[in-house]
């Protein structure tokens, strides 16, 4: 197993790098998009709430693979030629943003409604109150669930393998099919994933216990 790791070190590390990069990019963008849709869902306007709701329910209830393959095939066919990495990251972002929207929305809802009312009574607009009063409190509440979302994101980034996204899973498959050492290769790939996900998972458990 060590020989396999040493022989294919650069492939493993580059796969690991692409996996981390894709996860971080998707996290960054899905935080922004997710928060926007979460705010839409709690806005006074009914139209805004419906739009927010539809987005969240649609993308939460369709498999990530369907979303990713759709963007990969359709954008490449009709819009512009993109590589698997870009398509995969777009798919990941859209899928994850729906879950983050749901998490952030429940965070916003658990902030006492008096906070918003008091801020509005002080003369703030809805957006000012949201940005300066409600969201900072909501984000504090949703840090542990967001951590879990990030773990899911890292695991889900393995769908990049379907669209040749150069990620860890893709490299692992390439190595497994050339060396025929399937068991060892998949164990090494698994260890690379665990290096990221397990520490975060334990840290989040610790954080949840501390906050509870």
């Amino acid at each position, binding site marked *: 197993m060590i020989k396999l790791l040493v022989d294919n070190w650069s492939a493993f590390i580059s796969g690991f790098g692409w996996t981390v990069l894709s996860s971080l990019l998707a996290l960054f963008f899905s935080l922004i998009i997710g928060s926007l849709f979460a705010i839409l869902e709690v806005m006074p306007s009914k139209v805004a709430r419906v739009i927010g709701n539809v987005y969240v*329910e*649609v993308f*939460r*209830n*369709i*498999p*990530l*693979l*369907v979303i990713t*393959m*759709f963007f990969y*095939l*359709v954008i490449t*066919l009709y819009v512009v030629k993109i590589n698997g990495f870009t398509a995969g990251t777009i798919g990941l972002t859209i899928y994850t943003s729906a879950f983050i929207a749901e998490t952030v929305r429940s965070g916003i809802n658990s902030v006492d409604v008096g906070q918003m009312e008091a801020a509005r009574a002080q003369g703030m607009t809805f957006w000012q109150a949201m940005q300066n009063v409600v969201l900072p409190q909501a984000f504090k509440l949703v840090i542990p669930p967001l951590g879990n979302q990030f*773990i899911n994101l890292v*695991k*889900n*980034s*393995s*769908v990049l*393998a*379907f669209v040749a996204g150069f990620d860890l*899973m893709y490299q*692992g*498959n390439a190595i*497994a099919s050339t060396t025929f050492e*399937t*068991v060892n290769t*998949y164990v090494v*790939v*698994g260890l690379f*994933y*665990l290096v990221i*996900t*397990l520490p975060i*998972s*334990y840290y989040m458990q610790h954080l949840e216990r501390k906050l509870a």
Partner: protein
Amino acid sequence: MQNWIDAYSWINIRFLLQGLEITILISVISVVLSFIFGSVLGIIRYAKIPYFSRIIGFIIDVIRNLPLLLIIFFTYFGLPAFGFKPDTIPAAILAMTVFESMMIAEIIRSGILAVDIGQMEASRAMGMKMGQAMWHVVLPQAYKKMIPALVSQFISLIKDTSLATIIVVPELMQHGQVVYGQNPNYIIPVFVAMAIMYFVVCYALSLLSKVIDRRMA
């Protein structure tokens, strides 16, 4: 427009629905098995048996934090090295069950933890054994609390069966690829049809969970 009409011929739609059937079959078998194994593992982890619970807990954490896709690959391409070569559908069910059992174990454990400790103490004080108290008093209350989490886990399981397309399990995603493989003009219509099928099943389940949750509250 003609593309859409051609893509939605009865033969194609029937083929997609046959895929959906396999998707649901794999999901239901996996969820039933995972529920049983997950309950046992979750209770073992909760029970804090010296060493044993720790080891089980660590295994749960490791498998939970791996991508399901990796587990599917391992089951289908790795297990033959140990002399066990499952067919595609059994391999998918095995991989899903291993992964989902760990997810459900965690749900079960936190569900049990959420039941007031006084319930267990009171039952023990009434002279019940640990197992009796667990079975008759704690678990019924815990399962009630876990329904939303269990249903949403079931929904992600249904969505995750699409990953099994990589080992050519004849489920919905795989059948979709066969249909749009005939003609690139079918890509958008087929994806829309697949998305609707997954959505209807998953969204119906999430509505059901909301109804049950409201009834129980």
